[in-house]
């Protein structure tokens, strides 16, 4: 565990130095935490190596939580032991996150565990080389009217390029709403700080200050996220993502089919047939079982009530009427329940 020991020694020096800096008389803003991110990165490295779920939790901590909490510690350090009103603190927090253009929600969303299916920016990252290459090669003809033997290909590529533009636009509209939520969060943070300024209500820890920001941010977000404006922007963004993705998939299918590769459409078609056949097979099975049950009941009810000793050797002929109810039974889509036997009660 040499690495862990090294980490401990380094970490102790780092935290002690920071503690000393905090205790010393510092002008506003002078107490900072240089190397916080490095320290957390280092911790994360040594913390890994246990269960996969532990590693994943450490990664999630390192992806976002440590960064935000580190920034909040810096904010707290600026004002520790100094008179400061809610406006000063909220303003410093806003500055720390980027000033008037700050969009803290965009930062949170960008670092969420996403995939090319969710985050627009990550979609662009994944598809960018291909799209850029296509744009570079096709810039001259993308806007031209399509004609000639390659007309269908050109139209398809034009639609793809348009889908990319649409997604960028919808992504910007969505980001604008998140930015609005961010600005509202700063205002709410200030009001919450103001409410904690009375004696007996003050915040005693960085953690409490951090939690207050979380409350403000979530309230601002909920306000926007429940609005009809957000509903429209969200739908437009997702629809644009799906449009671009769908057109990309078509291109891949086009390419695959040129080389005789099976495509997703073909695989889907096969799966659809299998499910439909299974469904039909179940319906037929259920209908047959219903017929058999009905037939058994009718046979039992039509058996002559005579002593066994004088019973005819041949089975009684089935009444012709059995066909009619049987035909009805085939229309049932679910398996009829077996005749319930005398049930136990609870």
């Amino acid at each position, binding site marked *: 565990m040499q690495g862990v020991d090294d980490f401990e020694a380094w970490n102790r020096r780092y935290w002690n130095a920071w503690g000393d800096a905090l205790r010393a008389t510092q002008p506003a803003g002078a107490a900072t935490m240089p190397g916080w991110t490095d320290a957390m990165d280092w911790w994360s490295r040594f913390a890994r190596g246990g269960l996969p779920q532990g590693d994943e939790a450490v990664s999630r901590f390192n992806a976002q939580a440590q960064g935000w909490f580190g920034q909040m510690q810096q904010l707290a350090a600026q004002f520790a032991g100094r008179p400061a009103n809610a406006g000063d603190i909220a303003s410093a927090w806003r500055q720390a996150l980027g000033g008037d253009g700050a969009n803290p929600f965009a930062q949170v969303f960008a670092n969420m565990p996403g995939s090319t299916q969710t985050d627009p920016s990550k979609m662009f990252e994944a598809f960018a080389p291909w799209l850029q290459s296509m744009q570079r090669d096709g810039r001259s003809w993308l806007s031209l009217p399509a004609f000639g033997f390659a007309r269908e290909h050109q139209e398809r590529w034009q639609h793809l390029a348009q889908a990319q533009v649409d997604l960028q636009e919808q992504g910007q509209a969505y980001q604008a709403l998140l930015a609005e939520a961010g600005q509202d969060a700063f205002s709410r943070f200030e009001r919450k700080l103001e409410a904690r300024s009375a004696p007996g209500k003050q915040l005693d820890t960085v953690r409490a200050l951090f939690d207050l920001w979380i409350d403000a941010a979530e309230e601002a977000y909920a306000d926007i996220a429940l609005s009809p404006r957000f509903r429209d922007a969200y739908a437009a963004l997702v629809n644009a993502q799906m449009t671009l993705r769908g057109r990309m998939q078509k291109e891949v299918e086009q390419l695959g089919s040129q080389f005789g590769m099976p495509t997703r459409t073909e695989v889907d078609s096969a799966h659809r047939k299998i499910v439909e056949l299974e469904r039909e097979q179940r319906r037929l099975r259920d209908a047959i079982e219903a017929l058999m049950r009905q037939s058994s009941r009718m046979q039992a009810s039509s058996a002559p009530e005579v002593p066994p000793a004088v019973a005819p050797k041949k089975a009684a002929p089935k009444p012709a009427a059995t066909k009619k109810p049987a035909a009805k039974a085939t229309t049932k889509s679910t398996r009829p329940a077996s005749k319930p036997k005398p*049930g136990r009660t609870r």
Partner: protein
Amino acid sequence: MEGLGPLGFTPDSLAQESLRFQAKLRAGLDTLHQVHDIDYGATAREEVWRDGKVVLYRFRGNTLPNGRAPTARVPLLIVYALVNRPYMVDLQDDKSIVRGLLERGEDVYVLDWGYPDRSDRYLELEDYIQRYIGGAVDHLRHEYRMDGVNVLGICQGGAFSLCFTALNPHKVRNLITMVTPVDFHTSDNMLGNWTRGLDVDLFVDTLGNVPADVMNWCYLTLKPWRLFVQKYVGMVDVLDDPKALEDFLRMEKWIFDSPDQAGEAFRQFVKQFYQGNGFLKGGIEIGGRTVDLRNIEVPILNIYAEQDHLVPPASSRALDGLTGSDDYSELSFRGGHIGIYVSSRAQREVPQAIHDWLAQRAK
């Protein structure tokens, strides 16, 4: 610190807080490597029925420390949602609704949907409701030789259970719905708001099955700061407590253990429930049959969570008056959508309430 504004800490107290944070991180270097078992499932169970990937498990109360055979004569079938995994109802020894029910004498079964893959893309709601729930219910009816069984539907599984009961009223004896969405258009329903403008045909046609990543991202963005920032700062608090860390990691495992969603069933659910709000406005069709909640005449216990951010209380409580039952009860639980399974309050209150309610209707 009067007169200093909202901040009541000093440089010294701040430094002390930092040292405590550091000590927790240091402890985490050990505990994170010591935790070896975050497996789930507190209770012995056995597979009793299967249809494809869908399995019905019977849970065994007699294997518990103070275990006993069921005293209830009517089996209780738990139907969970398609999102996330049903082991949430039997997460660990001290967080298990199943265990609580078994200890009180209930005979508990859980339907496990499994993990749909590409070949399941064309499964429809009819398959989930009539084929799978129906198959499990018929199996129990046959085994117990009785007309109807008790059903406990949870979240989306509650919506499925309502549909199943409406379509097959004679097969359900008592119906319990837990954190079940009924009105999908309440003003505080964030998921309902987001899905209403979605072109779900384009969505499913493009994605096929809806990937777990997409579902997880959607749920995380309901409360992005709490679920992806604050929670992991909170994790530092338990880094020096192996048991609490184990619990935290087990919950993490459950949260991110999401099956893909079968595309066609997802399309139908979003259209008929989230967009069409079919329980209230009508128009829900399962396998060509119309769902009419007024067909449900059995006793109903509707349990909702007061701080539920996924299924707001108003969404669940809308069930009142929609069914044909003249024996409708509500139970309000003080907690959230997850707390209703795993909090200590839930362990005390929920199984007891369900058991008492069923017992009263068994007389």
